[in-house]
Structure formats: structure tokens, C-alpha cells
């Protein structure tokens, strides 16, 4: 067997040497005439590639399904408007399994396999925290649609930005006055036991104390938990308000068991809609939610004063007036969060256009252009409402909604101002080098 193989090896080696020589020649020419090489690169570049890190499987899949629908609709809108800088935009979606380790691997695939220009999309904060360091190493602009405070806290890096959705800290400090004035001063918190839940725990506890209230019990639940009745007896009898926020596939079980536990005799309920995202509020066993309150980033049910921008967005992402899919009324969307994907893509487009983005060499220019953004007025690009972007902390700030369950629908009863959500800067990413 050997002779044939040997000749093949020799041939390959010679061929390889030849190829190497040719490559060296091309590279040398490129070095001598950098301008020509660069132009040739620009001319040969095809569409702008945006990597979409999506939770298709794992505990974030309900969000992932809707984030993907919104991303697809937003990209096709951008392409209908002529793309970005005259180039078509191509979305490359990869499943991260809602898993931090796979999240980082997916970033590497976007960078080295697909040659993406930027990456966007993840919601779950442990995936963001697991992936962001890799984004920094790969010098890959990473636009997250999470809610964690990790971006604005300075824990991440200059390549990670959150321009499409507000963070937990700003949400809870703007909600706390409503809770203490309307529902009660003694609060028991139930939250998922990971980064996102810890943001709720830390910032709401401080925010309610600033209002003269008190968190009398904190109940942390592992995010993969499937049964919850065992946690409820820890709620003290003198609780005025139960503040609940839960995520993952078991959210329906969580609210149902909470109703069974209280049996209609419980304290006031204030929930983050996360406890009910992608869940039909008229599901059997959820009747007890009537009269309780929820935070919503964007109101799931079309409100009487819905703007034309929101109506256009609702139609584009295929959602009816009840927040469910136009094709299947039982397929309830993650409406309170998924606008963040739409708005993030609008920001990427605006940033690339402002910086004259051409290729991966212009990535730092893209980040600087986004950092320079401030006001983002209500528009088709920002259907959730006015926003203010803070370039130093890489975090956007916007209005928050509190809705009440009335006749099985969420009706907005309060909207905060942007000023209610602001807090002092904790980092200045613009001082970090690229």
C-alpha cells in the first residue's frame, strides 16, 4: 500500500509549497499596495452578516422562538428599506441551547466560521455573562437583549452593548414607588436563583427600602425547578405584597401553584411578566391573577392608545391584539421583551450607517457610533417608546408599564417616565481601549 501513498504525499507537499509561495506573493503585493488590497476586499464583500445567538432549545426556548420571529421580521424590514449602507443584511442564527458554554462557542462560530460583522440576540443573563468575555477577545460587537444589570454594572467589556432593552435595576427602581404606595410596604420576593434574579433581589430590596418599605423575606428558586409549592410556606403571614419573577419552562406551573397555595386568601401580588411570558393568562387555574399587577416592558394586549408605530410593529411580527400569534391564538408571545430585538437591529443599522461601516475593520467605529447615540424617539425603529441611550454604560433607558389583570386581560394602569428609571453611572466603557 505504501508506494502509491508515498507518491501522493510528495505530490501534495510540493503542491502545498507552491500554494504557500503564491499566497506569500499575494500577501506581499497587498503589503506594498495596502489601498488596493483594501478596496478589492470591500468590493468583494457581499452582504452584511449579523450573527443571531438564539435560545432555540433549553430553558429559554419560548423566548427564543419569538426572538427569532421578531429578528426575521426586523431584518426583512431593513432589507426592504435597502439594507445597510446599500448592502443586503443576512442573518445567521445559531442555537446556544440557553447554555453559557455553548453561548461562547456560538460566538466563535460567528467569528471564525461565518465571518459575521456583529452578533445580537441573547436574553438569559447567564448566557450573556458566559459569552461576553469571548466577544471581547474576538473583538466582536455583541448586542445583547437581556435585562440583567451586568452590562451597565461594568462587569462586561466595551464590545458588549444593550441598546434595545432596559435593565432590571432601572425597571425596579421605577416600580418600587408604585408598589409601596398602592400595594403595601412589607414585601416577600420570589425570584430565580441566578444573575437575573439576583439583580431583582439586590436592587428591589434597596429600592423598596428607599420608599420606606421593607423586604421581609427573599425566596430564591433554582431556574430549572419544576415544582414550587414547597417554597410558598416560607412566605411570612404579615406579608402585604408578594413580588414574584420566575423564568423558564415551568412558569405556568409556578403561577398555578401559587394560586392553589393562596386559595384566594393571599396577599397582594406584583409580578414581573416574566412569570407569565408566553403563557395564556386565561389558562385554567390562573383565575386568581384577576386584580393582580404585572410589570410589562411593552404591553401584551393592545391598549386603547396604541400608537401607529406599535400597530405596525405588532403586524410585522405577526401578533394579534391579545399578544398571541396571528396564526395560532394559543401561541402567546413574549411581547414584553421581544421588542428589544427589533430595536437592537434598528440601532445596529443606525450605528453602521453613522460610522460608514464597510467590513470587520470598522467594528470599533460601529461601537463608537452607537456610544455616541443619545435620544431614540418613539418611531417605527423604537415602537416601545422614547428611549435614552447612555454611551458610557452601554445601557438604554426607557418607560416602564404596570398593568392590572382585568377580565382576563392586562390593562395598563401606570407608565413611568424615563427619569424614574435613571441611576448614577457605574462604569465608563468609552475609556477602555479596543
Amino acid at each position, binding site marked *: 500500500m505504501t508506494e502509491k501513498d508515498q507518491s501522493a504525499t510528495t505530490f501534495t507537499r510540493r503542491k502545498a509549497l507552491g500554494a504557500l509561495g503564491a499566497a506569500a506573493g499575494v500577501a506581499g503585493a497587498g503589503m506594498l499596495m495596502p489601498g488596493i488590497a483594501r478596496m478589492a476586499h470591500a468590493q468583494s464583500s457581499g452582504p452584511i452578516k449579523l450573527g443571531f445567538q438564539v435560545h432555540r*432549545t433549553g430553558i429559554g426556548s419560548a423566548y427564543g422562538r419569538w426572538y427569532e420571529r421578531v429578528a426575521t421580521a426586523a431584518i426583512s424590514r431593513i432589507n426592504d428599506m435597502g439594507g445597510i449602507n446599500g448592502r443586503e443584511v443576512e442573518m445567521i442564527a445559531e442555537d446556544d441551547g440557553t447554555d453559557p458554554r455553548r453561548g461562547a462557542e456560538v460566538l466563535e462560530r460567528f467569528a471564525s466560521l461565518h465571518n459575521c460583522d456583529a452578533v445580537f440576540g441573547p436574553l438569559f443573563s447567564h448566557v450573556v455573562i458566559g459569552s461576553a468575555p469571548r466577544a471581547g477577545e474576538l473583538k466582536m460587537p455583541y448586542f445583547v437583549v437581556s435585562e440583567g444589570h451586568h452590562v451597565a454594572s461594568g462587569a462586561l467589556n466595551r464590545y458588549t452593548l444593550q441598546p434595545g432593552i432596559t435593565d432590571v435595576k432601572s425597571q425596579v427602581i421605577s416600580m418600587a414607588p408604585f408598589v409601596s404606595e398602592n400595594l403595601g410596604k412589607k414585601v416577600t420576593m420570589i425570584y430565580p436563583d441566578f444573575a437575573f434574579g439576583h439583580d431583582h433581589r439586590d436592587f428591589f430590596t434597596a429600592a423598596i427600602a428607599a420608599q420606606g418599605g421593607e423586604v421581609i423575606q427573599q425566596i430564591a428558586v433554582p431556574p430549572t425547578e*419544576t415544582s414550587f409549592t*414547597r417554597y410558598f*410556606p416560607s412566605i411570612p403571614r404579615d406579608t402585604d405584597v408578594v413580588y414574584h419573577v420566575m423564568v423558564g*419552562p415551568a412558569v405556568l406551573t409556578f403561577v398555578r401553584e401559587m394560586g*392553589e397555595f393562596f386559595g384566594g386568601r393571599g396577599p397582594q401580588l406584583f409580578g414581573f411578566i416574566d412569570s407569565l411570558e408566553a403563557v395564556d393568562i386565561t389558562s*385554567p387555574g390562573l383565575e386568581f391573577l384577576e386584580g393582580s399587577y404585572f410589570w410589562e416592558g411593552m404591553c401584551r394586549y393592545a391598549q386603547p392608545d396604541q400608537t401607529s408605530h406599535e400597530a405596525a410593529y405588532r403586524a410585522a411580527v405577526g401578533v394579534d391584539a391579545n399578544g398571541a400569534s396571528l396564526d395560532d391564538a394559543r401561541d402567546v408571545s413574549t411581547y414584553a421583551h421581544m421588542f428589544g430585538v427589533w430595536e437592537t437591529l434598528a440601532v445596529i443599522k443606525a450605528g453602521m450607517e453613522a460610522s460608514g461601516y464597510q467590513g470587520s475593520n470598522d467594528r470599533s467605529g460601529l461601537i463608537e457610533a452607537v456610544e455616541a447615540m443619545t435620544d431614540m424617539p418613539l418611531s417605527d425603529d423604537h415602537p416601545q417608546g422614547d428611549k435614552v441611550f447612555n454611551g458610557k454604560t452601554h445601557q438604554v433607558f426607557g418607560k416602564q408599564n404596570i398593568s392590572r389583570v382585568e377580565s382576563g386581560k392586562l390593562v395598563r394602569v401606570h407608565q413611568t417616565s424615563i427619569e424614574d428609571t435613571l441611576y448614577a453611572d457605574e462604569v465608563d466603557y468609552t475609556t477602555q481601549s479596543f
Partner: protein
Amino acid sequence: MEFGPHLLLATLEGAVTAAILALTAIGLSIVFGVMRVVNVAHGEFFMLGAVFAWSIASFFGSHPAVGFVAAILLAPLIVGALAAGADRLILQRIDYNPERTIVATIGLLYIIQQATLMTFGPDARPVEPPFNSVIALPWLEHTEAGWQVYWPWGLSVTSYKLFIIFAAVAVLSGIWLLMTRTRFGLIMRATQQDREMAQAFGVPVDRVFAYVFGLGAGLAAVGAVLVVPVQQAHYLMGHDPLLLSFVVVIIGGLGSLPGTVIAAVLIGLTDGIISVFFSPTLAKIIATLAVGMVLVFRPRGLMGK
């Protein structure tokens, strides 16, 4: 919540866990006892039962009870048939070699999980319970006027959770009758004690093994169908039942049915009580510690021979 009512609630929660666990672990135990196969895919058969329960219940979408009855009858049968097929197709061909069966069932675990993901999707799917009224429970307290009944806040159970406990007892009694009073049980026990001798006496061991593997998976599926109305069907739900079933089977004694039931009650109740009073993570730690202690001090388990 005061201590007494709190303990009662914990015990009820623990009893539900124990009921489901006993069904799942008995399935694992029978398969190991008769076939000497450590079925690592057992948790995935549990998950399949739950997912089929959801699809069957949605197919019979009229009244929740109709869907549920159809699910409890059909889902275990389908899962059992699939498992029997897997036994014929895979385990029989590797001659039930202990090391190879472990690797083969690990492979089966991933195949079932990915196939479910690809066909049913990653979402959690609810099944509506056939009935689900909340039953508030009374408690006694001693006041100046003597003992008085009162209704503590939060102390309640649902009619469906009570049903789970009764249903599990009924199924387990049925299994006990099957093992001790029927010809099939006799053949199973004969195969368990001496495979070659049973074969020499004309027992079709291959067919018995397929039935036993199907029965084990079917029992996991029964547990799953019972649990879906209080949890939800999800493609990743097989991990916990598998781990806890192993814990129960090791503590109870490999292959011993009474041991498995005792251990399931023990682990289920401790899990319920410790989870309520301390934390669910501590309950898992203690269960794992118990396995370690059993392996060190009584390797054959509580009732193992």
C-alpha cells in the same frame, strides 16, 4: 406558617413526590432485577410518557377528563411498545452485556431526547388535570376556650394531588399482584433467578426480556402521565426522575420491589420535608449522601439479597 400545618403541607408534598418516584423507580428496579440491565435511558422514557400525554390530551381536546383518561391508557402502552422495540433492536443484539448495555442506553437517552426535541419542540406543554379543586385543610389549636379547629393560611391540597397518591398505590398493588399471582410474574421471577435454567424449561427468555423492558418503561410513563397535570411536559424533564430512581433503587436494594417502595417513600418524604423547611438543594445533597452511606455500610441496600 406555624410548625404543625407547615409539616402537614410538607408531608403531603412529599407523599406526591414519593408516589411518582415509587412508580418510576419500580420500573427501573424490575428491569434491573430481571434483566440485569442498568437502564440509563429510564428518565427519557418518563419524559416520553409526559410528552405523549400532552399530544394525546391535545388530540382529544374536548373535556380535560377525556384527554387525561386517553393519555393514561395510551401513553404508557406506546412508551412500553417503543421500549420493547428498543430491547429487540439494541439490547438483545449486544447480548445484554452489562458494560455495553450502559453505553447503549446512554445512546438511547440522547436519541430519545433529540428526537423529542425535533418532533415536539423545546417548549413546556401543559396538560389540564381532569379535576383540580383546592381542598383547604383544618388544623387544631389550643386556645383559652380549649381546642379549636381553624383553617391555616396556605394549608391546602388539590383533589388531583390526592388522586396521584391513590393512583400510584393502585398501580403498585397491581404490579405486586402481577409479580406474585400470575403466570407472567412466575416466569419473570424464574428468569430473574436463573436465566439459563428458565430457558432450559422452555421459557422464551428473549420475549420475556422485551416485555419486562417495556413494562419498566411503561411504569415510568404512568408516573409521568400522572405528574404532567401538576408540572409540564418538557424534553429536558428526564434528568431528575432518573437520578432519584437510581438513588431509590440503590437504597432499596437492587431488584427488590418492597425495598424500592420503602426507599421511594423514604426519599420522597425527606425530599418533601427538607425542601419545605430548608432547601431543595439540601434535600438532593442528603439523598446523595444516603446513597453513599448505603453503599459503604450496606452495599446490598435495605432489602437487597
